[in-house]
């Protein structure tokens, strides 16, 4: 895969983007008239502040950053949805302007009609879509449902259909925003397979994602944005490490966990991030309640895959707290902590979903799959 001189696919030169904030936006004539009379001071928000970089042909380019860092705005400018306030974007070659899956889906149309509509947005004529239709339906595994209206599809079915169409896109440059964050496990695996093939074929791809595992597994180069500026660009591992660090330092991931405390129960000790095989130690307390005789703690993935749960029902009356310790031999990803409480008869008296969230990071990357890591080895003789 050694190339002598990389050819640029996307050149971004010193772009700035400012948005006029909604409160000062004039959407009625009355406001417009008022604003003409008044000294109209516009409140603007700087989303991107002098970003320059080049994506080369054959790059699988990852863009990461916390919420509000400007990455989606940047992607939309590359796609031509927004125009930069200042600066220049040069695109060499054709670009599929698809940002999200299922853009333009109409819930009132049948699955079949939506395939043609979506295909047109990707640049395919009705005739070309005729040729691809069967393949799309087969990949989506939705054959019997194609004449039903899209509004009767489950969200999983919609995503499957959208993805099956999206992978038909053929262009010099493909761009995706958070595509891998939707769908169930099986669907995400299918996505990964397609993306791996893109990488193998040296397809130029720009991918915005929150998942460092995806960045590690797929990207050849990556960029981290912070407050509208480039924090780091280049090596994938460096970008992934910087991003993970910025998340640990972030105050709002702590706030996120504190806000979800159920009434009367306090859970302390959830760290935002754990390494592989770390122990999570929780202290659970209920200073103002006397009716708790048992607790249960369970862990599930953010996609609601139940990982593990256990109960403890022998709490002595008048005891006001308990400690819980668990070894996290989990694959990397984001997980939720759920809780249950039991009354004196041993029946469930309260259920609390998603009381805290944490991330598990490890270096298994894509060599493992599933939810937990069993101790294993391969022996070659």
């Amino acid at each position: 895969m050694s190339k002598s001189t990389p050819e640029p696919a996307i050149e971004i030169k010193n772009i700035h983007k400012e948005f006029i904030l909604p409160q000062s936006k004039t959407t009625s004539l009355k406001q417009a008239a008022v604003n003409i009379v008044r000294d109209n001071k516009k409140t603007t928000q700087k989303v991107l502040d002098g970003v320059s970089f080049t994506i080369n042909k054959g790059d699988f380019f990852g863009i990461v950053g916390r919420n509000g860092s400007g990455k989606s705005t940047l992607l939309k400018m590359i796609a031509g949805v927004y125009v930069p306030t200042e600066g220049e974007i040069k695109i060499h070659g054709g670009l599929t302007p698809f940002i999200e899956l299922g853009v333009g889906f109409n819930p009132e149309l049948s699955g079949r009609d939506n395939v043609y509509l979506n295909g047109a947005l990707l640049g395919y004529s009705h005739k070309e879509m005729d040729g691809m239709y069967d393949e799309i339906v087969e990949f989506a595994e939705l054959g019997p449902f194609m004449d039903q209206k899209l509004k009767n599809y489950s969200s999983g079915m919609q995503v499957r259909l959208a993805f099956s169409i999206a992978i038909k896109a053929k262009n010099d440059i493909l761009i995706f925003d958070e595509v891998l964050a939707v769908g169930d496990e099986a669907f995400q695996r299918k996505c990964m397979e397609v993306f791996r093939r893109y990488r193998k074929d040296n397809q130029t791809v720009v991918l915005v994602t929150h998942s460092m595992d995806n960045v590690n597994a797929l990207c050849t180069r990556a960029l981290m944005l912070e407050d509208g500026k480039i924090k780091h660009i280049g090596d994938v591992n460096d970008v992934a490490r910087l991003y993970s660090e910025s998340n640990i330092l972030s105050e709002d991931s702590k706030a996120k966990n504190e806000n979800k405390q159920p009434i009367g129960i306090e859970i302390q000790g959830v760290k935002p991030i754990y390494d592989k095989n770390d122990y999570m130690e929780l202290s659970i307390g209920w200073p103002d309640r006397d009716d708790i005789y048992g607790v249960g703690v369970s862990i599930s993935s953010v996609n609601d895959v139940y990982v593990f749960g256990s109960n403890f029902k022998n709490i002595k009356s008048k005891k006001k707290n308990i400690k819980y310790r668990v070894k996290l031999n989990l694959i990397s990803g984001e997980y939720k902590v759920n809780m249950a409480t039991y009354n004196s008869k041993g029946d469930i008296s309260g259920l609390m979903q998603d009381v805290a969230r944490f991330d598990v990071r490890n270096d298994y990357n894509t060599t493992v799959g599933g939810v937990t890591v069993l101790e294993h080895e391969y022996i070659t003789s």
Partner: protein
Amino acid sequence: MRYVTKKNRAILREMVATDFKVRYQESVLGYLWSLLRPLFMFAILYVLFTYIIPIGKDNPHYGVALLTGIVMWNFFSETTSLGASSVVNNGDLLRKISIPRYLMVLTSSISALINLAINCLVIIIFALINGVHPTFEWILVIPIVVELFVFSLGIAFLLAALTVKFRDITYIWEIFLQGGFYASAIIFPITMVPGSVRDFFYINPIVQIVQDARNFILSGSVHTDTLWNSVDSIFIKIAPFIVIVIFAVLGVWIFKKRSPYFAEDI
């Protein structure tokens, strides 16, 4: 900018098809409604102005003239009001994909154009039943329809671009259309308007379009005149065309200037 590329044609086709399917799929009579609406309006006005206030007593083909006016006006009203909200209604799409924005306006106008074509067939059938002699001048209605299309589309572009910034436009235009119906000499012949005011009516391109279309359709049966022949002042002769050019150029110019910002302004 690429205009009529293969890709844009494909999008246009699918969007027009979607428009039709979504609009009529839940109704029993379906597409027939787009015929029944103008016909019903025609029936009311016909009864009113033939038997109660007999405006049309001098014209044996008042019904044909009225129907022609209503169909032309309906096209104008549909293209401009649907066009005005077409960009805003597709806000979700615009924020996520960079397809040419003019396709939204064009989609609504083409839906209206298909309706117009079918309504024109109804006019022909009605005219023949009514005893109007078919002539070759009927073909001259085609350039009149082209003129109407250009005018309507120009205004639709202008309104669509303005509606993104000021949502009030939709309501203002609705009121404007109500008044416009009476200012376009659709239910009464233009000769009923007093001479001093008539010159102002002539500036309205819809008056010229409706009068001329009627003239061509009825040319074999009743003696009427095109606007061109019935006024003396050269200024009034060309006034409607100037108005059309002004609105078409202004509409396209403002739309083109504003369209890169639609995604963030919506």
